[in-house]
């Protein structure tokens, strides 16, 4: 009999507490690139404010935004971290679920770096090298042909004679979009391939960004730690990392230059290093009144002490946003995205 009472009491607790489960801590999900920054801020927030430390999930920008657009209410998340801007389709999905009052917060910039094993050759890339090495099909003798390149020195004689193996982020990562846009598409244009494709009547947009599938462009769906493990086991591999991840692993990795520029916070802030992107988080205005501490957390995140130069985020590898003051105003005035 005692077993039965135990069960019923457990169920009773369940039933009564469901209604009363008002939340007092901020819940966040999204980009694994933003995750380390968000945890650093959450930790400092928990230490210095009376509110509890926010709970932060990762899982990728797309997954986070999808969760974010589930609706408004206690059992939906308050903030989605993203390493790219929200897409119109996602805004539409949000609106369908009743999440129409979004505030977009840009927290700073992150560089995307190309790094290889510390014991191997060093590389000086241009976007055109990456396009020629990784494009699925290239124009040869006036026709489209599968990419024949197997060694880096075949695409550019200045590069070392090393097998082409590249670990690029999978499509669920926001980083991939930036990689496609700023490296592969740029390389397609720079190398003149885009013009050649158009003269052939082929769809340049699609041919420029389709990567080869013969095992030389390996998509990594996990985190940068997986990319690092792949390079550990195949020292010919070149991986795509966030600047902060590289800076924490300078013992194992050496970084390649892009267009002759070494990636660093300075070169990314000045715009000399070409492959960088802004990082964002999106917050539901409707939750400001519902979840205590939500606005404090959002404002704390982009305060000068945290996201500004010399702050803990900059220490970790975030490139501070020169227009941080504007972001702070957007949050203070609760300016919605349109």
């Amino acid at each position, binding site marked *: 009999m005692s077993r039965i009472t135990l069960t019923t009491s457990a169920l009773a607790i369940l039933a009564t507490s469901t209604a009363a489960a008002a939340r007092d801590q901020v819940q966040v999900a999204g980009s694994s690139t933003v995750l*380390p920054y968000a945890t650093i801020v959450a930790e400092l927030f*928990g230490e210095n404010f009376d509110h509890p430390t926010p709970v932060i999930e990762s899982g990728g920008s797309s997954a986070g935004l999808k969760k974010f657009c589930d609706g408004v209410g206690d*059992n939906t998340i308050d903030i989605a971290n993203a390493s790219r801007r929200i897409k119109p389709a996602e805004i539409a999905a949000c609106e369908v679920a009743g999440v129409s009052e979004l505030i977009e917060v840009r927290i700073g910039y992150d560089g995307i770096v190309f790094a290889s094993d*510390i014991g191997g050759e060093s590389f000086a890339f241009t976007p055109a090298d990456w396009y020629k090495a990784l494009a699925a099909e290239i124009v040869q003798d006036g026709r489209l042909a599968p990419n024949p390149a197997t060694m880096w020195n075949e695409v550019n004689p200045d590069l070392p004679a090393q097998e082409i193996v590249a670990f690029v982020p999978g499509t669920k990562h926001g980083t991939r979009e930036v990689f496609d846009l700023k490296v592969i598409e740029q390389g397609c244009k720079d190398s003149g391939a885009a013009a050649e494709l158009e003269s052939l009547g082929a769809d340049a947009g699609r041919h420029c960004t389709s990567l080869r599938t013969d095992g030389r462009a390996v998509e990594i769906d996990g985190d940068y730690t997986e990319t690092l493990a792949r390079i550990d086991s195949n020292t010919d591999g070149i991986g795509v990392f966030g600047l902060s991840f590289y800076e924490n692993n300078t013992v194992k990795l050496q970084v390649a230059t892009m267009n002759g520029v070494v990636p660093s916070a300075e070169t990314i802030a000045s715009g000399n290093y070409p492959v960088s992107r802004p990082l964002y988080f999106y917050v539901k205005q409707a939750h400001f009144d519902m979840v205590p501490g939500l606005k404090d957390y959002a404002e704390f995140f982009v305060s000068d*002490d945290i996201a500004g130069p010399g702050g803990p985020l900059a220490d*970790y590898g975030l490139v501070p946003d020169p227009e941080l003051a504007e972001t702070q105003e957007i949050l203070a005035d609760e300016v919605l995205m349109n």
Partner: protein
Amino acid sequence: MSDQAARPISLLKRSGHTARRHAAEARFRTCGLGAILIGLLALAMLLASVLGSGLGAFRQTYIHLPIHLDEAALDKSGNRDPKALKKVTTISYGKVIAASLNDTVLQAGIATQGLTKDDIAGIISREAPAQVRDMVLSDTDLIGKTIQVRLLANGRIDGYLKGRITAATAARDSNVSPAQLQLADVMMERGLMSLDFNAAFLTAPDASDQRPEAAGLGVAILGSAYMMLIVLALALPIGVAASIYLEEFAPKNGLTDLIEVNISNLAAVPSIVFGILGLAIFINFAGLPHSAPVVGGLVLTLMTLPTIIIATRASLKAVPPSIRQAAQGLGASRMQAVFHHVLPLAAPGILTGAILGLAQALGETAPLLLIGMVAFVREYPGAPPEGLFDPASALPVQIYNWTQRADPAFVERASGAIIVLLAFLLFMNAGAILLRRRFERRW
């Protein structure tokens, strides 16, 4: 015919057939032995790699330091107003600690060539200001005094003392310099720094990427314990009731056969499916909160139920029918026969099955992914029952999280967490064996 007559079979002489049979047996034994050796080798490799990289997590580098809690920096008004004191952030406390460390190093006459003030302060963990701030907020009389404290050292310094980082790798490391390592060496000699047992690893909450030295398993262990509590409270009674009914009372027909097949099938369903179910039913439909142990516990209950039902039915079946017949022959009802005689005899088997089911649930990550428990959680959940609705992490989730962190120091933490999880599993499985040995009856 004539051939057989010419070769009579002798019992004293080994025939070719016997020799072949013996050889086959010897071959089979070697194969079996080989299989066991391969298994043992794999286990030894796993243990060696986990213990090799994880034992370090149970020891931690601490800095012993007198800290002058400067009133001018921490309480400008001087009236110890709790509200004003709370406004003083960890950044101010960081400066106070850095100044005290600098003074201590200077007074001890330690050479600091090639080190800036920031470099010297860099050997202390970023967690330290929070430690000191908590101390001051809980006892405001400390302000203005000099107190002796034990602070965490930075993860890289800790890594150096544990042999993970060497002067050669530090030269290439952007987060630590060889000069800082030399300073650590000197401080170690002077007794300002020590490598002690790390109890906080089992009690402290998770920490961010910048503080691997402060990360602990406290929230994860609590979250796992809450979930196991729910699984035990729900899966055991439901599972046992279902099996008793199916085994002892239900008519044997097509419907019960169908149920039986389905239960066996559910036991083999991938655990992520239960996570999807949990998200749809418990969070989206029932409105339970994200990241809460209650949802995790319910999902794991669903996952563990088939295991418990199968084990319970097997142990009920193992009780000889003569027991039931004897009880009923003496006038007991069917229910009395089951509850007074069959169930007590089957109990050891049921408990073993339940413990094994719990152990399986304890190590499960996939279903928790979808219900938001794979997260960075720093706040301890409250006491049950309300605490069951607070966000928490779980042991296997914590391992998964740590393996994804950029700082290599988290590899040690992740392996340490694996050791803790293995210890819990070993403890539970040993309990199951003990119960079986103790109470099992054979007929």
